[in-house]
């Protein structure tokens, strides 16, 4: 099976769905080419090159470079979706949700419900999350808990190339609005990705690693941080089970509970904040549904409740690392009532 990067896997998913279904269109800032690109052939395809080459194959009627107005093109994309197209709209950084909040959270999320199921909004929003590029507080957040809050939105966080392709195809075929969160630091990660199309169903957690001592739930890039920690802990005789929920809405609570019932210990690793974040949400859910199984308090490994620093040394302190995960796992292991 050919090895592909996260970037290539996403690009391939878009190409295959655009070939299969002529109602799939692409809209966003710089999705065709970067500012000042010299002609179609030189098109860069978004700030990190993910949609490179699409303009050449599908032309400017299906790959639409929009003005710098999220409120405008996100509204247009929702209107197109309500009228039979399947737009893939690019919200470059999830931090920009503020300027199209009404369109996505008040309109797209509620349309199907408000009109008694008569209408649907098959819209997919691709957006970047995550810190690590030193691009400061307004370009580095992980706002997936915010999207997860809104009933009516589906929220997807692929942690690798295989999942990225199958989940994006699922998103493009889904009749509900889907927020597809790509982590900036994963674009160059490679793994085996089939050439054929395939769909990974939403709400199906992936067991990354099996182990009987501690359950670690991790999302997006944090799956790999958890993996590093688990490998190190395994050498010290502590076996962690790593669960990647893949989607936070719907959330595969059943798999998480099933694992915690086996291990009795839970550590949640997420790059969203410690307050009102995914770790808090999953922690509350497990405390409600599996309290009797817990042998130790649930531990959260998240960034601190501060704006994301731009200084690289401070940013590195901000992002959860394997050392912090190891400490949290040890604390759950050493806990005595």
């Amino acid at each position: 099976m050919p090895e592909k990067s996260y970037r290539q896997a996403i690009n391939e998913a878009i190409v295959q769905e655009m070939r299969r279904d002529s109602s799939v269109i692409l809209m966003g800032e710089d999705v065709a080419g970067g500012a000042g690109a010299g002609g179609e052939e030189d098109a860069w395809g978004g700030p990190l090159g993910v949609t490179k080459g699409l303009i050449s194959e599908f032309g400017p009627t299906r790959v639409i470079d929009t003005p710098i107005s999220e409120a405008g093109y996100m509204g247009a994309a929702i209107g197109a979706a309500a009228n039979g197209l399947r737009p893939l709209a690019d919200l470059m950084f999830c931090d920009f949700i503020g300027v199209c909040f009404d369109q996505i959270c008040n309109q797209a999320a509620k349309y199907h419900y408000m009109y008694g199921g008569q209408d649907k909004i098959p819209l997919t929003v691709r957006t970047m999350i995550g810190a690590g590029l030193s691009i400061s507080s307004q370009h580095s957040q992980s706002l997936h808990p915010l999207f997860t809050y809104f009933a009516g939105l589906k929220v997807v966080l692929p942690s690798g190339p295989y999942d990225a392709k199958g989940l994006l195809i699922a998103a493009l075929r889904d009749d509900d609005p889907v927020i597809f969160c790509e982590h900036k630091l994963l674009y160059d990660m490679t793994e085996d990705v089939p050439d054929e199309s395939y769909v990974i169903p939403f709400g199906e957690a992936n067991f990354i690693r099996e182990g009987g001592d501690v359950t670690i739930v991790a999302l997006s890039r944090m799956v790999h941080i958890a993996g590093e920690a688990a490998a190190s802990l395994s050498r010290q005789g502590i076996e962690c089970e790593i669960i990647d929920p893949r989607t936070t809405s719907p959330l595969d609570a059943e798999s998480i509970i099933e694992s915690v019932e086996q291990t009795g210990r839970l550590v949640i690793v997420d790059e969203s904040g410690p307050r009102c974040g995914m770790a808090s949400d999953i922690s509350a859910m497990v405390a409600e549904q599996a309290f009797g199984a817990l042998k130790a308090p649930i531990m959260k490994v998240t960034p601190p409740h501060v704006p994301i620093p731009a200084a690289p040394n401070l940013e590195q302190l901000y992002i959860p690392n394997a050392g912090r995960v190891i400490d949290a796992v040890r604390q759950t292991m050493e806990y005595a009532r």
Partner: protein
Amino acid sequence: MSNDQITALTMPKWGMSMVTGKVVDWLAEEGAMLSTGDELAEVETDKIVNVVEVQGDGILRRRVAKQGDELPIGALLGVIAPAEAQDNEIDAFIEKFQENFVPEEVEDAQVKEALSIDVDGRRLVYQKAGAEDSELPPVLFIHGFGGDSSSWMFNVADLAANHLVYTLDLPGHGASSKKLGPDPFETLVSSVYGFINQLELGKTHLIGHSLGAAVSMAVAVKNPELLSSLTIVDAAGLSDALAGGDYIQEFINAERRKDMKPALQKLFANPSLVTREMINETLKYKRLEGVSDVLTALARAVFPDGKQIHVFRDQLADLPMPITAIWGADDQLTDPVDAQSMPDNVRVHIIDKAGHMPHMEAASQFNKIAGAFLESLA
């Protein structure tokens, strides 16, 4: 006393994709007298837990690997030596082994670049292993419904010691073309025939499992001159009854782990052998565009209304090549009752405590039976 009598027991390589194995449990105590074929330890790979057998004779002097260790292929599991060997000699042997041990480089090209050939306009993916210069006939393994080459991960290495061994992904399966054409069963049969012919394998030892066994029998009936021998494993195609009809539908319908797990567990006498990784790998195949349609079409063509329509029992007696049937006693899918009252030219072996997949679940027994059968023909 020289070190010659001290023998290293190492992590085996089961299948092309295996890089490491995890020691689940030791099955022999230090101090136990062991000989070739004795059970040493349980090792878990990505796919399944299996038993490592001892190669050599002597006392198990050291269990070097610890329970739970994840070790690369070739890593030292333990040491056997005669009683005369001194402890310090054994320590020195272990130290030297560990000093010199370099995990085999995983050559990506070798592992990932599967071979392929076009047969009747379909791309068939296959793997090849073993004795390239062997004068014995090659072995060709054919997997069952919904399976692929990796079904034979525990069997290839054993037979590859003496034979050139091929494993083929049938059309609609594994990495091969997902197009089956209007007569799916005939497509599978002519693909195997075309594969043997186009690669000029000459007379071949054909080993087929389940639906792959029915395909193999069809090839044997149609082109008996192609085969040196025929081995059928938990075979379909011996009666019109289909014990595991539910399995076929459950397998086709399963899109999620929760549904796939109980389906796959029906394949084994010991359902705990089904690992999450096995479920994941199966789901990865099932998700590929076209696979559900292909499996549905295939199931309709070969098992319509819960009956098998391609039955070869009466033709076996007339086949010229030697035939062996191997069966798991606890098979829930193809009833072991089908192994009874075989014609005289078919040797039947029933393996206890194995389900529909004896070549995985009881790999060492399976390999012994299959290996002895082929050896008897050499």
